[in-house]
């Protein structure tokens, strides 16, 4: 942990980090990109999750929807991670000790694990349930888990700005 803290300190002292932190337009602009890419990435992941959960987009085959939305989800992901890294880079020490920031990372880890388990598990035999309006229980579970985790991530992300536990 001490190592990560020192790393954050090192970044915080960088001239480029200071410049971004103190910029009048750049910082708000990067935050706006982060919010807009939230719509692209999370919005389209959400559309997929609703399909998996059996509550939305029900008349489109799962594998087809997945293949069609995937490239756009990735566009959103790149923008989201890129702008997120910049926001962190601007003031790492503010985030380092923030309990909501840490919670956000734990939940993002869980969301990745959930996606991987689904992708290498139930999704392998998608052909068997591709057209079912309400997919099998394990698939619905993965969809609901993803939705719940991402809602949690958005909450934690928003709450980073309100650090009640210093």
């Amino acid at each position, binding site marked *: 942990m001490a190592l990560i803290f020192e790393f954050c300190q090192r970044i915080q002292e960088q001239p480029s980090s200071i410049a971004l932190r103190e910029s009048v337009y750049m910082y708000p602009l990067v935050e706006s990109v982060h919010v807009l890419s939230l*719509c692209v990435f999370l919005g389209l992941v959400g559309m997929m999750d609703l399909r998996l959960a059996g509550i*939305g987009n029900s008349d489109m085959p799962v594998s087809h929807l997945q293949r*069609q939305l995937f490239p756009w989800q990735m566009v959103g992901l790149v923008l989201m991670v890129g702008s997120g890294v910049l926001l962190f880079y601007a003031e790492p020490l503010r985030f380092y000790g923030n309990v909501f920031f840490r919670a956000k990372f734990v939940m993002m880890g869980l969301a990745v694990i959930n996606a991987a388990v689904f992708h290498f598990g139930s999704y392998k035999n998608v052909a068997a349930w591709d057209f079912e309006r309400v997919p099998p229980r394990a698939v619905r579970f993965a969809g609901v888990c993803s939705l719940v985790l991402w809602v949690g991530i958005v909450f934690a992300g*928003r709450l980073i700005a*309100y650090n009640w536990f210093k």
Partner: protein
Amino acid sequence: MLLPFFQWCETSSLGSAIRDSVWLFPVVEAVHLVALALIGGAVLMVDLRLLGCTLRRESATQVARNAQPWLVGSLTVLLVSGVFLFSSEALKCYYNPPFWAKMTALFLAIVYTFTIRRRVLENTDRFTQGRLQVVAAVSLILWSSVGVAGRFIGFY
């Protein structure tokens, strides 16, 4: 002219309740953001289809039919949570140019989505591919203006 109304909102019991609570404003803000993500998905899926960028095997009409409940649902949550947020800082909003920009863009986006865009989506075969792309582009510009202006309320 509208100032008395904003003052009334600010002093309403809803406004003061949110101001008096430490966690209510942030939580409503987070709800607002979750609904924003969802409306983003519902709008984008349809507009990308109109642009010819995704789901070309399905008709735009079919994609729009699938997205419709999520569009209406998330917009409802956005409007309700937005009124909550607004009432707690109505006077700040009154003197905040990004707020007025957002309200203008929001009004145009809602009217456009539920009139022109809806009509076009019901009869896509009557329009050329180029026209459909323009319809989608206008929608994307309007809705992203709402999002960006909203973010700037907090910066101004």
